[in-house]
């Protein structure tokens, strides 16, 4: 406990330099804008910015501070277009439209924004405290992990991701296997033989994760916009009066218990691998509706209905950092992107990170605290500025996003071949979206494929080829059990939940 607090104090020493503060501010600002713009979520935003962080030659800690600030910022920003335009800026912000839009229609847009801004702060702030105390505990458990347990843990991440976050288990399994298969391309690190390179020297180094993610997420988004350009909703913010932009005190008092409960739910939803922020906001909203909606005001502009999903999804964003930092196993698209960046900087997250690079971990956590206060300041008094950003028409915005993607990838490798691979990934991403195949498992697969194989082969080397080692310790049996349950149970549970969610969303569209 005391030890943790003193590490945190050291972290503040790292984060309170001019460079880190400036990067945190820049990240918060960019993140809020990225989150607010429809079609650009946290994972897109962070993915586009990673190549830049590299090309700028930032050291690990400042680079991580920049990108996690973008991540937190995007989680805050997602609510702005949800409330004002009824278009969620990102998936986790979807639940916020349910009560946010009716509040805005009642002329309480400013209050809804301010209140949800404060709820975001509350959720993220306490989730960061959760991260401070839970991550070191998890690290103690993780130190007991051998290669066999790690292999099982990777399977667990894919299984819960496929089980919880997707509607079709077969497609999620396909997506994960596809991503892992892509990771197999290139020279095998243990024996030095080329695999799946079809004689092309370009493939010897494998497919760069960043090329894959920028293509799959950012470029495919451009194709989606091109496809639907005739039916693009015009962002029209002119009709909405912001009104007062501070939350009234009685509203804060009334929604306070909701905020606490949603933060708790969101945080634990975030810690579960594969669940992430969308589940956090969904669980928080549904639970609050069951618990406090006595007069049936949820869905009609109840402030508590705005607070619950926002506190929930921001808390989940903090929770999702716990397994990423402590175990090195990301549970969501955005934390996968952050992990990719750490790996590229030659830092391996996991229990050893806390021992070998405490400055990175605690500097990052301190920066998250600082970033939260910056975001609160940015998101309550200055919300009007972000509303204006929403008025940039998509036909200028998306080409800009596409060109920045090219700049980023070209900046890393300077190779035309990588740019073409990125375009191919853009097309693949578009096709997979059409077929309703989730993209996050693909990304996670491309990123984790080699680590997963290494752990399997290490385990097999230890046991001299006996597959039984994968199920030899109680710890690994436990992980396998959770993985199997996590994959199968949602087949029955999640469909019901999803259907309910869809009903709620369509019902709110009708009235």
């Amino acid at each position, binding site marked *: 406990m005391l030890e943790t607090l003193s590490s945190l104090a050291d972290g503040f020493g790292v984060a309170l330099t001019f460079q880190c503060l400036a990067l945190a501010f820049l990240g918060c600002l960019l993140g809020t804008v990225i989150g607010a713009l429809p079609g650009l979520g946290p994972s897109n935003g962070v993915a586009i910015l990673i190549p830049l962080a590299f090309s700028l030659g930032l050291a690990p800690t400042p680079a991580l501070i920049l990108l996690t600030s973008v991540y937190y910022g995007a989680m805050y920003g997602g609510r702005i277009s949800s409330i004002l335009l009824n278009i969620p800026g990102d998936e986790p912000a979807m639940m916020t439209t349910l009560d946010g839009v009716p509040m805005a229609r009642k002329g309480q847009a400013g209050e809804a924004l301010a209140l949800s801004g404060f709820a975001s702060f509350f959720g993220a702030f306490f989730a960061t405290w959760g991260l401070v105390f839970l991550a070191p505990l998890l690290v103690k458990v993780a130190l007991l992990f051998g290669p066999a347990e790690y292999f099982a843990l990777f399977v667990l991440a894919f299984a819960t991701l496929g089980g919880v976050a997707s509607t079709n288990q077969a497609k999620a399994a396909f997506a994960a296997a596809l991503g892992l298969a892509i990771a197999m391309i290139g020279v095998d690190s243990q024996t030095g033989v080329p695999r799946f390179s079809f004689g092309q020297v370009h493939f010897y180094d494998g497919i760069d994760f960043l090329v894959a993610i920028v293509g799959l997420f950012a470029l495919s988004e451009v194709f989606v916009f091109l496809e639907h350009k005739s039916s693009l909703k015009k962002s029209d913010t002119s009709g909405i009066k912001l009104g007062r932009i501070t939350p009234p005190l009685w509203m804060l008092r009334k929604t306070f218990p909701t905020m606490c409960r949603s933060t708790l739910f969101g945080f634990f939803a975030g810690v579960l691998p594969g669940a992430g922020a969308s589940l956090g906001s969904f669980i928080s909203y549904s639970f609050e509706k069951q618990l406090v909606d006595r007069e049936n005001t949820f869905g009609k502009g109840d402030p508590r209905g705005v607070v619950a999903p926002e506190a929930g999804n921001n808390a989940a964003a903090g929770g999702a950092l716990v397994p990423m930092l402590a175990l090195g196993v990301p549970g969501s698209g955005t934390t996968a992107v952050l992990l990719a960046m750490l790996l590229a900087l030659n830092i391996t997250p996991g229990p050893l990170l806390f021992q070998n690079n405490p400055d990175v971990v605690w500097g990052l956590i301190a920066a998250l605290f600082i970033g939260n206060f910056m975001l609160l300041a940015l998101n309550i008094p200055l919300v009007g500025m972000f509303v204006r950003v929403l008025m940039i028409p998509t036909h*200028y915005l998306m080409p800009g996003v596409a060109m920045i993607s090219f700049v980023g990838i070209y900046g890393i490798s300077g190779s035309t071949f990588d740019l073409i691979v990125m375009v191919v990934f853009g097309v693949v991403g578009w096709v997979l979206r059409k077929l309703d195949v989730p993209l996050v498992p693909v990304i996670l697969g491309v990123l984790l494929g080699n680590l997963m194989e290494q752990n399997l082969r290490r385990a097999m080397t230890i046991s001299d080829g006996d597959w039984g080692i994968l199920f030899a310790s109680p710890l690994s049996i436990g992980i396998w059990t959770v993985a199997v349950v996590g994959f199968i149970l949602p087949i029955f549970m999640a469909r019901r939940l999803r259907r309910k969610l869809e009903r709620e969303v369509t019902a709110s569209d009708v009235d």
Partner: protein
Amino acid sequence: MSDRVFGGIGLLLGVFFIWQATLIPLSFISDPIGPKTFPIILGVVLSLSSVAIMLLPGGSADWPGMRTFAELSAAVAVLIAYSFVLPLVGFVVSTIFAAFYLCLRLGAPLKGAAIGGVSISLGIYALFHLVLGLSLARGPWGF
């Protein structure tokens, strides 16, 4: 229907992947399971999930018409051409044209797209190259 076709293609991909995995040459250094085993497992998962998708197809995908396909193919062609031209004529010039094209096709008026193309290109150049010092493609004129 789309799901059945998709499952079929996925199955072919899975089988192709397994076949390619069996062709991986063995090296003189080796570990108990070697470089082939994990890829083969992945190929099996790919094939099995494809069969499941084929047998239990979900809702049908909503494919766009020929016009939209032509639109998307043209955009892909432009982006690939952009990738080739970038090192030849430099960042600023090639980006003006690529961004102009995308703005236009996403529904900007002609004049707006021209202004959009030039400002996106110069904006990125100014911000990323001049301010942040990122190296962009240099053409014959150095920008």
